């Protein structure tokens, strides 16, 4: 059986199995094993793309090129480490009574279904199926956000459902508009929604319709990326769910939504030759950066604070892809990778910290370095990494972004720097007392596994210091591919 079927089939079958046995002790091991199998499949597929370039599978239904195969690998990797982290974490939650065995079954099967949805979205060649897969991923996580059944969690999940539902409906309208103009060129069948064919024939699509379609797609998929002003659901959803879910939502789902947006931008650039799509993305990206950086200061809940940091970084990435030059695309792709790794690492750490102190309120978490040095140092280093300090990868990608911006839009460097500085100040002002403050009395000893965190941070460090040659080539190919449309 080929690697591709393995990639898609494993999560789907595991989801079904978990629906039955997800509450047993062995479930966490199965979770890890299934994720590891998909990781192997993903790496195999990446190797294939490296060797022979992009290829399609199952006729023209699925498509793997440099851009999405690295995202697939990243998703598989973070899913595996999250599964490793979630094992002891959810066991602890079950012990203290925050989840029942029914809900644990739901958790495990929805986790796998969510991962399946993401793989489907990343590898499909059909814009309609892309929409369906993203919606599926959203639906799988809605019930997980409300897993703890507290008033705040249910309110957060409802907000998530409604706002993302509306957003994604607008994205469907944009997809319909693309189909409206492409069906006149490619016929009234699945061909008119196939990305590879659309990309090749982009010049023949009507520019006016494509522009309007992109505006709807930007607002629609942008809601799922967390761009301001459509971000209202994000802090709640990422803050109230169980920590592994916050990690994958922040680290993976936002990436997949941005991936969908950038794929559509490539089509629109080919059709309009005007650069409006890029300008819109830059505007939204900058706005998200500034608003999120300011909002960081006012947060009282640690997870909400870091989810605003996610909004800020997604804004940076959107800005990078909006600029559209190969250098900017490279920066964006690198940033996607390191942000995923560092942010999920941070969320793991935060999850442990919250468990240790029994609360998520920043004001009640103090002196981590004294009673749980692993967590304390992990949090400090993670915050340093995500704020863009060298030698971590985030510094590299931001530096590249500034360089690219200086080439094309020098005026943008000032607000970018401003946003980054404000965000850094906000994060540190909250994290510093959490790590180094006076120790309170109610710290609990817990069984923690900091290995995933260290692995993630280590990878981010490597990517910052010395990107391996094959990876750099990979990014470069993808960057050129994305730029190529805007001839």
């Amino acid at each position, binding site marked *: 059986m080929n690697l591709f079927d393995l990639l898609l089939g494993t999560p789907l079958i595991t989801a079904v199995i978990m629906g039955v046995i997800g509450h047993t002790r062995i479930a966490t091991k199965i979770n890890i094993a299934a994720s590891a199998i998909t990781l192997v499949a993903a790496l195999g597929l990446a190797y294939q793309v490296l060797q022979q370039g992009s290829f399609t599978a199952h006729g023209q239904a699925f498509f793997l090129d440099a851009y999405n195969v690295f995202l697939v690998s990243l998703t598989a990797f973070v899913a595996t480490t999250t599964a490793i982290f979630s094992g002891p974490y959810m066991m602890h939650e079950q012990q203290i009574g925050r989840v029942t065995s029914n809900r644990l079954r739901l958790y495990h099967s929805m986790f796998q279904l969510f991962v399946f949805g993401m793989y489907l979205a990343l590898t499909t060649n*059909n814009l*309609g*199926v892309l*929409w*369906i897969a993203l*919606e*599926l991923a959203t*639906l799988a996580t*809605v*019930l997980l956000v*409300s897993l703890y*059944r*507290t*008033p*705040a969690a*249910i*309110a957060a*999940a*409802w*907000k998530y*459902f*409604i706002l993302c*539902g*509306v957003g994604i*409906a607008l994205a*469907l*309208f944009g997809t*319909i*508009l693309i*189909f*409206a*103009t492409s*069906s*006149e060129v490619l016929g*009234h*069948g*699945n061909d*008119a*929604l196939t990305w590879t064919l659309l990309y090749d024939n982009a010049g023949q699509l*009507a520019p*006016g*319709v494509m522009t*309007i379609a992109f505006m709807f797609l930007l607002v629609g998929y942008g809601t799922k990326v967390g761009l301001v002003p459509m971000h209202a659901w994000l802090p*709640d959803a990422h803050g109230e769910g169980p920590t592994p879910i916050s990690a994958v939502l922040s680290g993976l789902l936002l990436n997949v939504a941005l991936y969908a947006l950038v794929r559509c931008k490539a089509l629109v650039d080919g059709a309009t030759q005007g650069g409006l799509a890029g300008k819109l993305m830059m505007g939204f990206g900058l706005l998200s950066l500034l608003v999120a950086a300011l909002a960081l200061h006012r947060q*009282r*809940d640690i997870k*909400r604070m870091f989810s605003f940091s996610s909004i800020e970084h997604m804004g940076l990435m959107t800005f990078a892809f909006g600029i559209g030059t190969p250098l900017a695309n490279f920066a964006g792709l690198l940033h996607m990778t390191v942000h995923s790794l560092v942010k999920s690492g941070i969320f793991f750490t935060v999850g442990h910290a919250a468990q240790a102190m029994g609360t998520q309120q920043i004001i009640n978490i103090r002196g981590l370095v004294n009673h749980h040095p692993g967590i304390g140092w992990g949090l400090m280093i993670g915050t340093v990494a995500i704020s863009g300090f060298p030698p971590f990868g985030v510094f590299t990608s931001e530096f590249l972004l500034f360089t690219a911006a200086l080439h094309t839009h020098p005026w943008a460097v000032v607000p970018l720097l401003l946003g980054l500085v404000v965000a850094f100040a906000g994060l540190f002002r909250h994290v510093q007392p959490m790590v180094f403050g006076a120790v309170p009395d109610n710290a609990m000893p817990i069984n923690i596994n900091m290995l995933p965190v260290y692995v993630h941070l280590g990878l981010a460090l490597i990517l910052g210091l010395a990107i391996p040659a094959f990876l750099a080539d990979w990014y470069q190919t993808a960057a050129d591919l994305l730029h190529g449309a805007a001839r």
Partner: protein
Amino acid sequence: MQPALLQQWVAVAAAMMLLVVFALLAQRHMRALLRWFALQGVVLALTSALVAFVANVPELYISALLALILKGFLLPWMLWRIVINLGMHREVEPLVNVSVTLLIGAALVLFSFYVSLPIEKLSQLVTRNTIAIALACVLLSMLMMITRRKAITQVVGFLAMENSLFFTATSATYGMPLLVEIGVAFDVLIAALIFGLFFFQIRKTFDSLDIEHLEDKH
């Protein structure tokens, strides 16, 4: 029948869709709301069948049948069961200033006409006039979601929006490929199921389905 008359039948169907969406906006009783929602599903199916006949696209008949079964019968029935189980079928939503909402709705119709003009100019389809109406139905359903107080009317607004998107696909493109239509319908069904589960959770935690209780807690 001459093509001009066929186009007028399509225009009549579109006007009916618009009327049904406005009626949905103005309802205050749960029972009446769900009846109008079911009617929207039926009108949608009839419109799709009409477009299938006018434009000679046989695939659309299947979509129309799917729409009839799912959106005309299954979804309203599911919602009705939930409403009965939660004991809400006698409840009336408090007045949310219907007149102002309806006038905003009329302004939205004008706005969607303006947005759809370039698309309509380029389209060659028989149904091109109705693209503006379809977009208006989408925006009106969204207005419904924003201006309502009870969770279940928000859900009806969401489902009405999905119906309007189906109508948009029919009018702008003679319907999306069947695979995509089935996938979207499947997604909507799952969403409705999850909504149902949600209502019970919300009821259990808040003892009411008023959105005010779900408002910002931070």
